[in-house]
Structure formats: structure tokens, C-alpha cells
């Protein structure tokens, strides 16, 4: 199949993605520098915020506007979970609330566990500085 590279490197979509993704990271950086939150707490805050904004239907506008600029940051992971739950509820009712989120994020979670374990296995132990 031929790929239309002009579509792949669509400057306006890449620029919007770059700007929004960058700004979301700036928010994270300000949290790191200005608060005493640990990285783990910041990741939790971002995922939960994404899920709440996704549930309220707000984050979708950002995804439509910025594409990967909104889905690649961890807020997008939360959005993906919440959106999956909503879609599944529409189809299956209550059970969908439990299956939809993880189903939508299954690829990312499974990849993180699998590649994470593999990468840790092949990793070189850190040299202790004497």
C-alpha cells in the first residue's frame, strides 16, 4: 500500500501536536519545580485528571485538535480509560464500566508490562560509583 507522505508530515497537524504536547509537559514541569510532589504522584494526578476531563467530555476537544499531542501525555491515557468505559457502558450497561476502560488501554498496559519486564531483564546493572 502506498503511503501519502504529504499526509503523514502534515505541518499544521504536527505543529498543533507539538504545541499542545509541549504545554502539557510544561504544566508537569511547573508541578515538579514549584511543589514537593513526587514523580509518582504527578503521574497519578495526570492520569486521574485525564480520566475526569474525559468523563466530562472536555478532553475530547483537545484530542480532536491536537491528536497525539493530547493522547501521548499521560492525561491521554486517563482519557482513553474513561472514554473506553463510557463507550462500553453505552453497549453493555454496568458491566461496561468495568470492562471498557482496561479494554481500551489494554495494548498500552500489556506492552508496558511485557517490554518493561524484558527491558529490565536485559538491562546492565548500574555501576556503583566508588
Amino acid at each position, binding site marked *: *500500500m502506498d*503511503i501519502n507522505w504529504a*499526509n503523514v*508530515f*502534515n505541518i499544521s*497537524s504536527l505543529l498543533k501536536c*507539538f504545541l*499542545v*504536547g*509541549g504545554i*502539557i*509537559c*510544561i504544566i*508537569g*514541569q*511547573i508541578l*515538579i*519545580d514549584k511543589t514537593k510532589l513526587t514523580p*509518582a504522584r*504527578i*503521574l*497519578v494526578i*495526570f*492520569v*486521574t485528571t485525564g*480520566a475526569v476531563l474525559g*468523563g*466530562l*467530555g*472536555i478532553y475530547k476537544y483537545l484530542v480532536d485538535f*491536537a*491528536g*497525539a*499531542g493530547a*493522547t*501521548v*501525555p499521560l492525561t*491521554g*491515557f486517563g482519557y482513553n*480509560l474513561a472514554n*473506553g*468505559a*463510557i463507550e462500553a457502558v453505552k453497549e453493555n450497561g*454496568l458491566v461496561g*464500566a*468495568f470492562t471498557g*476502560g*482496561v479494554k481500551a488501554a*489494554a*495494548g*498500552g498496559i500489556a*506492552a508496558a*508490562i511485557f*517490554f*518493561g519486564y524484558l*527491558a529490565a*531483564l536485559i*538491562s*546492565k*546493572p548500574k555501576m556503583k560509583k566508588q
Partner: protein
Amino acid sequence: MDPLETKKGYQDYVDKKSPNSKILKNCFNAFWVGGLICTIGQVILNICKERGFDTQTSGTIVSILLIGISAFLTGLNLFNKIGKFAGAGSLIPITGFANSIVSPAMEYKSEGYVMGVGGKMFTVAGPVLVFGISASILVGIIFLIFNTQSVTLV
């Protein structure tokens, strides 16, 4: 009372005196590295769409690739170099999630492959999954009760 005598007063004083330029520089680095990682994701996303995958599947492929790449970069001790420079720029994208799994797993490798690597890999990722998945279930239940997105603020 002298503001420097209370702990909070001293902290305010330090905050006022410490240069803001470092934060600006950190934010700038976070901005362009984070933006760049998202843009790489967008290029992969666009290629997937050109190949005929739907949006949901394309997004999943982007996540899998970015997670795989950053997991192995962490294993090779390269990711923490990027992380030191970019701060939130590499932490906030999904790459930071992969990094947060591999880093503790590497550190506790000496404790064995089951409880060391297998257990410690969720030190940070565990809470992220707990809160993310729980929030999504709550969102689903709330949506079920209102059965409409009229709760939308916009």
C-alpha cells in the same frame, strides 16, 4: 516577628530569592522534548491511519511503540540521561510510564526475577493503574446514571 524566624517565612524568603531562570530553562526543555515526543507519536499515528487502521487501533500502536522504545532506552541507561535534561518533557508522555516500570525493576533485580523484577516494576505504575482504572470505572458508572453527556461543562 522576623519573617526569617518561622519556617514558612524562611521558605517564602528562599523562594523569592532563588532564581526563576532555572525554572524557565526547565520548562523550555520540558516543552520542546515533550512536544517532540508527541510529534513522533503523531507521525506514527498518521502512518498507521494511511495504512488503513482506525483511530483507536492507531492510537494503541503509537502507545505500544513509544512504550517499547522508552522501556529499552531505560534498560540501556539512556533514558535517565534524557530525563535529567528534559524533566517533565520525558516524564509526562507515555514514555515516562514505561520508564517508571523499568527503573525500579532494574534496581531490585538482585532480589530475584519474581519478587524483585516482577514485583517492583509496579512501584510507580501500580498507583497509576489503580487510580486510572478506578477513575474510569467511576466515570462509567456516573455516565450510566445520567446516561447522557449532558454533564458536559462545555
